[in-house]
């Protein structure tokens, strides 16, 4: 089923007309209402009137994640605070988070694009969606939740975690669609198999997985183990949350809701716009957002854009599944973490040395296993194990509190972590996320 035939099957010319009209309105609005953008536009010597064609978008300056941080909390609002009805923040929660503000219209827009995505994966009002993304400030849970409303599907707002209960609910309520991170779905499969449960006896037909990069190899495994079709969904808090793009039944590229999110691919070094089919950094402009609109937001995600005659009948532009991120941000269990954040927390803890390493592995469980190795002071290591436990727990708790993830902490003797003459290798990522993507 196509949720919004008029838009999703529109011809390119008409789509571009809508995009251009919305772009002009947006540029005018942010120039008038957001001092941050006025300053940026003025500095680049561009005026709203300069936007005459879609190609003129390249005259506008980019917006970066750092700028979103600098304008925290309300610096990017283009609507009065009174008109904001919901707020979300990015999962990287230390220091300054990135804030997305939604007006009532933005919320309606979000529900609309999420409903389209759920429909792309084959869901309709007869479905029961078990939503195992985390609920709260994270956009994953509430994003899917909001989208199920207009679709008319039943939502089980089970949130993440409690795997036994997840499996019980799947059977008892005959859930047909599962939404969560891909790694969590595989963990569910493992727990099911330990409990002697067989997914062939379940009613699941589709899984809509996102919030962390995953490979085609992983898809094969998920589809086999959970006996469903696994769809990739893409989104980020800054743009709206989940719902920016999603795979259709073809499972060949993600249809972008381009009437609201205008995509570009740029050369990450030069900032130059690249043609369709060329690989580069994905950039989005939120054509209709009123709360926190973004002009040419640099996602740091690497992919390419293409249009094909998709058998699903949708004409919207597609993006290939993510090939990676062009900076050092780690995505662990769906949470965005920068090594610098870990460092930041660690450096405040007494009795530790400033030498550490993050080792990320995806074991048979398919859950990200993150070991944080930390050196402790020479004299401290010989002390009672109880004291070591205290430091270990302290590090664990601080990380959990500030980053929202549980790390395995391993205290090691001084000088055990490899030293480098140049840049220290802080992260060892043993996950093979790109397997199968040659």
């Amino acid at each position, binding site marked *: 089923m196509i949720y919004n035939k008029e838009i999703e099957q529109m011809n390119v010319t008409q789509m571009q007309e809508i995009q251009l009209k919305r772009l002009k309105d947006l540029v005018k609005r942010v120039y008038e209402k957001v001092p941050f953008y006025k300053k940026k536009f003025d500095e680049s010597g561009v005026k709203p009137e300069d936007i005459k064609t879609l190609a003129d978008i390249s005259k506008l300056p980019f917006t970066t994640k750092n700028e979103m941080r600098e304008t*925290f*909390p309300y610096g990017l609002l283009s609507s009065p*605070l*009174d*008109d*904001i*009805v*919901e*707020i*979300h923040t990015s999962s990287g*929660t230390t220091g300054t988070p990135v804030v997305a*503000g939604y007006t*009532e219209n933005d*919320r309606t827009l979000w529900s609309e694009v999420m409903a389209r995505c759920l429909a792309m994966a084959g869901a309709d*009002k*007869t479905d*029961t969606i078990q939503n195992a993304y985390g*609920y*709260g*400030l994270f956009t994953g*849970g*509430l994003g899917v*939740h909001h989208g*199920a*409303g207009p679709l*008319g*599907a*039943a*939502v*089980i*707002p*089970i*949130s993440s975690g*409690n*795997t*036994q*209960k997840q499996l019980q609910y799947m059977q*008892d*309520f005959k859930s047909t669609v599962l939404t969560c991170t891909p790694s969590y779905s595989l963990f569910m499969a493992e727990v099911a198999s330990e409990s002697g449960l067989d997914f062939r006896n379940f009613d699941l037909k589709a899984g809509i997985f996102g919030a962390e990069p995953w490979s085609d190899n992983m898809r094969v495994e998920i589809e086999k183990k959970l006996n469903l079709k696994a769809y990739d969904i893409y989104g980020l808090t800054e743009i709206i949350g989940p719902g920016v793009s999603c795979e259709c039944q073809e499972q060949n590229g993600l249809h972008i809701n381009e009437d609201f999110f205008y995509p570009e691919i740029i050369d990450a070094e030069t900032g130059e716009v690249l043609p369709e089919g060329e690989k580069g950094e994905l950039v989005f402009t939120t054509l209709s957002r009123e709360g926190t609109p973004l002009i040419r937001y640099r996602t740091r995600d690497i992919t390419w854009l293409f249009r094909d005659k998709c058998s699903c009948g949708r004409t919207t532009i597609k993006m290939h599944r993510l090939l990676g991120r062009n900076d050092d941000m780690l995505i662990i269990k769906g949470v965005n973490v920068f090594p610098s954040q870990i460092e930041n927390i660690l450096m405040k803890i007494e009795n530790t040395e400033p030498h550490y390493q993050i080792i990320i592995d995806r074991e048979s469980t398919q859950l990200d296993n993150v070991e944080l190795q930390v050196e402790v002071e020479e004299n401290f290591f010989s002390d009672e194990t109880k004291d070591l436990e205290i430091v270990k727990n302290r590090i664990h708790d601080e990380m959990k*509190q*500030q980053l*929202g993830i549980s790390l395995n902490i391993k205290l090691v003797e001084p000088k055990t972590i490899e030293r480098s003459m140049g840049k220290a290798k802080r992260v060892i990522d043993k996950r093979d996320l790109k397997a199968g993507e040659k």
Partner: protein
Amino acid sequence: MIDLYKDREIETMDREALEALQLLRYKSTVANALKTPFYKKRLNSVGIKSARDLKNLLDIKKIPFTTKEDLREAYPFGLLASDKEDVVRMHASSGTTGTPTVIYQTQEDLDNWTNLTTRSLVSVGCHKGDIFQNMMTYGLFTGGIGLHYGAEKLGMLVIPASSGNTKRQLQLMKDFETTVVHATPSYMLYLYSKMEEYGYTLSDFKLKKALVGAEPHSEEIRRKIEKLFNIDAYNSYGLSEMNGPSVAFECEKKAGMHLWEDSYYMEIVDEDTLEELSDGETGELVLSILIRNATPILRYRTRDLTAIIPGQCSCGRISKRITRIKGRTDDMLIINGVNVFPSQIEEVIMKMPEVGTNYRILVRKEGLLDRLIVQTEVGPSIFSDDARDMNALKRRIIDNLRASITISPTVELHEPGVLPVQEGKAIRVVDKRGENK
């Protein structure tokens, strides 16, 4: 001047008109209930074959009570009165065993609920422009999502913080200039106690109101919260069987909670004889929900003890007020706002062969929060084994319990014969929260 009546006509109608509305809605609820095998049998047994058999409100007394056990037996779809296709939401709360209590909602049901939560927020002076930090858990529990949609509809800015992570809660309160919070009373006190440690003072916040609920608390606790934060605190009552928050809510007069009688039919009964009690007398609250198509529940025994406050509130609302919840008529424990039945715990640990038959449940205050401790006896072989095996077993007990009751208790393993053995009915639950205040 802000209008504190969202639905002025309904909130201030006279009793006669209210009762006419109740009868109308009760009839349509009965018509719905008759679509479920469970209620068809029950209602037929007392001669109610169609909604027309309900001539006046007194006829309601003929209907048998519904209990939590009934809901468990109807699990999972036995009380579903709408087409599955029309269901858009499901919520669940803890049952007396691992089987949860489930409710379904259609879009219309959700709209009705949202209308009530909006009305409740308006009645305590919340308005568009307020920044609302919702510290109740989001998910299957109705506390978080329930007020989320009502606040959004009112045009408040909602920060869906969910529960926990105190440091971040304080930071959000400061950065976003939060004016209204929704939390359990004990969490409000905990939040205050952590302010200094995390480097905040009251002057960092713009807080004006706290909506507190999900656990019983005294007037003293309310005053304490108000004084500590220099805010107004309002009491909120709800249970997931009846949709969740906004079954009853205090108005700005803070003189008891208005039970929204246009949406719920209320009775107070003697817990033993089940006779209806007069206004002012304390007994068990019995509720029928009048605004939900997908899961009608009639004369539900809430197990909560309260009394109707005689007379009308000076705010002018017609809906009668109930007192703070005074206790429970069953053994349900409320641990930091989460409902836990001892039978759930027993069910989990008795399924584990390594665990002996003797166990004890201890609840005490750890600082301002509740701590649940489960003490069990284990076989001598396990006890003498490697400490790692013991820890692994402990871990497994905690995991299994968390899957059932959603909170992580402390588990203590003891050698056989260490826990006190009672003659006759064992006293399994020791609640020490009242001590050493």
